[in-house]
């Protein structure tokens, strides 16, 4: 019987200890710290290993320097677990003053619940530095609810040397693009490196071609199920485009079995002329390519010029900061959200971690040429549309990627692909 008593007392101690530590935490999140400073809590996912960690630290330092009476408590969480944490924090009404979140569908329910502060009035001050296109994914029901730091976009990376050697011009529309591919094939060069095993890589190309055929507004409303149908003719064109490219042998051999790493390695090695993926490739080109100066970047060609422009981009600001409606210091927190995103935009750009969403009004001569080029495209963008798999509900997104792979290996015809997509979106 003695045993039992020992066990129960151990258990009781453990429970009490847990209780104490729990209480300790609660105390910390009160509005004011011991030295009379206003304390603001910021949640983000830039853990020590994150590429943006230093950018955050710098931005926070800057803010604290210009606001002497404010102390920022920066709490970081691991990306995947944060998704659950932030959702439960919204549900339990335990949001910090300012928090990291993803724009678009992910934060829709937060805004709907009325727990996020509307920022239109505060935004006026920053309008000249942060374009409305950049924050478009944070506008819900016509009102702004957050601020963004980077705008990753899909672009066409290409090997300038291969284009020059074969006397081919960088294409700007579908006809030019197809001709370029044909010429490369005739000269024995693989035109496009991609991975259909890592489906998102192929989706980067298909997403962009769809955008360039359908146009941003229509694409958005169809994918968000806000009107229109996927069975319209323009949607078929991008699927047919993929099919045509497959049939002419434009993609790297065995793309269905290559991972993104393997396929992009071939591109860096000069075994493929083009690669369609996000702006983040600039960093890898710098480190992995033998001659980084051989590479160039361009917007993805237009299929239907009456619907879309060369400057319409897939991607856009998703990593954002929002302000809790429950914060005690509304003005200060709103300022913090804008200033931190501005700071992270700047320091993240300078360190090569991201494409800035905010205007570059500082010296960026140290930034590599390719990154600068992408940044220029991003700031001059006429529209941003989030990637299919971010924009659509997750179930639809998963099916989309499977359909796309089927289209690629030929088990779905472009027509069937379109009707499957339409069926999925009508569910």
């Amino acid at each position: 019987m003695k045993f039992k008593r020992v066990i129960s007392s151990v258990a009781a101690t453990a429970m009490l200890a847990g209780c104490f530590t729990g209480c300790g935490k609660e105390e910390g999140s009160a509005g004011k710290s011991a030295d009379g400073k206003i304390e603001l809590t910021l949640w983000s996912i830039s853990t020590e290993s994150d590429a943006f960690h230093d950018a955050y630290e710098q931005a926070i330092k800057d803010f604290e320097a210009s606001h002497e009476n404010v102390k920022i408590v920066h709490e970081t969480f691991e990306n995947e677990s944060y998704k659950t944490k932030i959702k439960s924090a919204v549900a339990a009404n335990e949001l910090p003053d300012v928090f990291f979140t993803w724009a678009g569908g992910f934060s829709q329910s937060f805004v709907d619940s009325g727990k996020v502060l509307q920022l239109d009035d505060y935004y006026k001050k920053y309008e000249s530095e942060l374009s409305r296109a950049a924050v478009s994914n944070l506008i819900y029901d016509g009102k702004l609810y957050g601020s963004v730091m980077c705008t990753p976009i899909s672009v066409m990376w290409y090997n300038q040397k291969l284009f020059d050697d074969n006397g081919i011009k960088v294409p700007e529309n579908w006809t030019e693009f197809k001709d370029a591919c044909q010429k490369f094939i005739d000269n024995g060069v693989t035109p496009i490196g991609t991975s259909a095993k890592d489906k998102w890589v192929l989706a980067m190309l298909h997403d962009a071609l769809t955008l360039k055929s359908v146009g941003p507004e229509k694409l958005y409303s169809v994918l968000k199920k806000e009107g229109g149908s996927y069975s319209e003719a323009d949607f078929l064109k991008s699927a047919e485009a993929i099919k045509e490219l497959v049939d002419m042998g434009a993609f790297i051999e065995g793309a269905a079995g290559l991972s993104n790493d393997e396929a992009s390695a071939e591109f860096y090695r000069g075994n493929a002329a083009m690669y369609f993926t996000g702006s983040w490739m600039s960093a890898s080109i710098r480190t992995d390519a033998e001659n980084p100066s051989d590479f160039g970047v361009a917007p993805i060609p237009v299929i239907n010029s009456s619907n879309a422009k060369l400057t319409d981009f897939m991607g856009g600001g998703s990593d954002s900061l929002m302000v809790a409606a429950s914060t005690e210091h509304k003005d200060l927190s709103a300022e913090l959200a804008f200033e931190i995103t501005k700071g992270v935009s700047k320091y993240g750009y300078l360190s090569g971690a991201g494409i800035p969403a905010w205007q570059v009004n500082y010296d960026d001569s140290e930034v590599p040429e390719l990154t600068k080029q992408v940044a220029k495209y991003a700031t001059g963008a006429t529209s941003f549309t989030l990637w299919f798999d971010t924009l659509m509900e997750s179930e639809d997104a998963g099916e989309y990627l499977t359909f796309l792979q089927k289209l690629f290996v030929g088990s779905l015809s472009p027509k069937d692909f379109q009707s499957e997509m339409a069926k999925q979106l009508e569910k």
Partner: protein
Amino acid sequence: MDKIRKNKLAIFLFIFPAAVLFIGIIIVPIIMSAIYSFHDWDGITDMKFIGVKNYIELFTSESAGFPKTILNALLLAILSVFIQLPISLALALRISRGIKGERFFMTVFFIPVLISTVVIGQLWLKIYNPRYGILNVALETLGLDSWCHTWLGEQETALMAVFMPTLWQYVGYHMLLMYAGVKSVSPDVIEAAKIDGANGWQVSTRIIIPLLKPVIKICVIFAVTGSLKAFDMIYVLTGGGPDHASEVPSTLMVSMIFGQSRYGFGSAIAVSIIFLCFFFAIVIKRCIKTEEY
């Protein structure tokens, strides 16, 4: 001893820790999976009870293709039992007969079991690479260009291409089990057989293999249930693609739960896998009868 067995508290104390672990880690999650499988749930928002709809979709939905994954898993099970195990048995019999470097060969065959599957997967990815993979390069050197394939990228070859390393990897594992079994056969019996004029083949087939029956039964159960829940190698090599060609139930489950946030549907797959594993384990036990000693 008897005193302890009669002491209820002692029994409780000794069983309790293991029971807690067993119930908490195995029984409760199985029950919870079963409950989830009757709901439409994305993992975060409220669950919606939908009865057996998940199971109906499981067996009728063409885009999920669950029945085909079961066939793939069964094919793997058949290959394991009829190709992998005989190879293991042959190796075990050969090695245990006391050849030169017995320990060396045992280690060599067992190495793939020790190395992480992800590492082996990476190695096989290189072997299968259409451009510089040793398989295609070898075929080209032999002038068999027409035999070259994008092994993991074509629907016709992907399934076999992922099964090969899966089978190869565990040859050593089953070999070790059988080797231990062969070694435990009393030398007296073998000697007696030899005196009676039995040759090596007869000793193996008439004496050792029958005595190995319990071990073989275990190996068959491991091979079959292992095939039904095969995951890691396939996930590394193809992720179930292209177009579900190499999909097995567990890769489908992962893509449903983590790719599409369909926890309810994924749980239905999980429950089906558990059910199939139990079913085959019991069937095999019934089929291969062994005498209890």
